């Protein structure tokens, strides 16, 4: 066992469990009791802040894996595997929602024509904005791998600005326009499916903005270099996933 001492010095965090409990309370509260929702929100926020604080102090990167823990992905970092497990759960969430939408739509005798309800041009602009934000994030990673911190800062700032622009167009222009036309969440299945799916996507994008904002904070404080940039890579994986989801929502709601 003495040989394993160096492996047991790593920092392990209980925060993912606390976040899970917090989110569960938050969702339960949303359904049954608003003060419970607030409590869940506080627990989640505090746990997230603790994760961010640990990230700032590089506690996770000190953690070393035992060979048993690493198998069968010994070449991958623990954080990256964690992100992919998380993304797998996200695929199940969005996959279920999209499947439900397709099921409902195919089972309906009538459905409004997409281009008459939604603004195709705004949808296309938003798609290009998201694609460009993905490019910005991946270039930010490319630059920091090469030790270019200015490129990293520009990439992250661009991604943040583009992600914000997407939300402004979606929530500030598209939704109000649709609501004015009487296309609301209560106006029937086309409305409820649209607002639920694009709303869940917008929440994910907002969470991505928080994560990119955190990366920016670290980047502007000299927190990354060519050998220490796993945070940029992991948040990038999430950001691209949110982009991929939109690649399906755009045609399903705006074109077909």
């Amino acid at each position: 066992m003495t040989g394993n001492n160096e492996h047991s010095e790593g920092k392990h965090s209980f925060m993912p469990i606390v976040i899970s409990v917090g989110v569960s309370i938050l969702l339960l509260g949303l359904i049954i009791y608003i003060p419970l929702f607030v409590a869940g929100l506080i627990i989640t926020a505090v746990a997230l802040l603790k994760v961010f604080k640990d990230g700032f102090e590089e506690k996770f990167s000190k953690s070393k894996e035992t060979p048993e823990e690493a198998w069968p992905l010994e070449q991958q970092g623990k954080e990256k595997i964690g992100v992919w497990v998380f993304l797998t759960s996200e695929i199940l969430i969005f996959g279920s929602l999209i499947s439900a939408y397709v099921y409902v739509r195919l089972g309906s005798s009538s459905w409004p024509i997409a281009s008459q309800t939604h603004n195709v041009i705004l949808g296309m602009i938003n798609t290009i904005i998201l694609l460009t934000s993905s490019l910005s994030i991946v270039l930010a990673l490319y630059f920091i791998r090469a030790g270019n911190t200015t490129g990293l800062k520009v990439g992250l700032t661009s991604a943040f600005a583009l992600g914000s622009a997407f939300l402004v167009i979606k929530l500030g222009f598209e939704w109000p326009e649709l609501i004015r036309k009487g296309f609301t969440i209560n106006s029937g299945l086309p409305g409820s499916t649209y607002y639920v799916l694009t709303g869940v996507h917008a929440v994910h994008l907002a969470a991505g903005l928080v994560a990119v904002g955190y990366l920016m904070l670290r980047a502007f404080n000299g927190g990354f270099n060519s050998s220490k940039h796993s945070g940029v890579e992991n948040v990038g994986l999430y950001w691209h996933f949110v982009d991929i989801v939109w690649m399906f929502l755009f045609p399903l709601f705006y074109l077909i």
Partner: protein
Amino acid sequence: MPGIKTYVGIWLGLVVATIMEVVTRSLPGAVSLLALTILLISSAKAIFIALYYQHLRFESWRLAVLPIAAIVGIALLAISSAFSMAMGG
């Protein structure tokens, strides 16, 4: 890992594919065929983002097992739903 030219080239391809989707929508032809074409373009876009921006093309195949398993699960769900619909359920 890819260089800047590859990343920008992929982005350009994705933008062109998006424009193609919008153009395809207004082409004459059977609606179901056009919808299928648009969804195929969307799937291709998603695959390119996963392969090049999420770097799955350059990672161990073992890492891709996780998302692929989830996609297979969703596909099974969709197929069972379609089957249920066909049976009038």
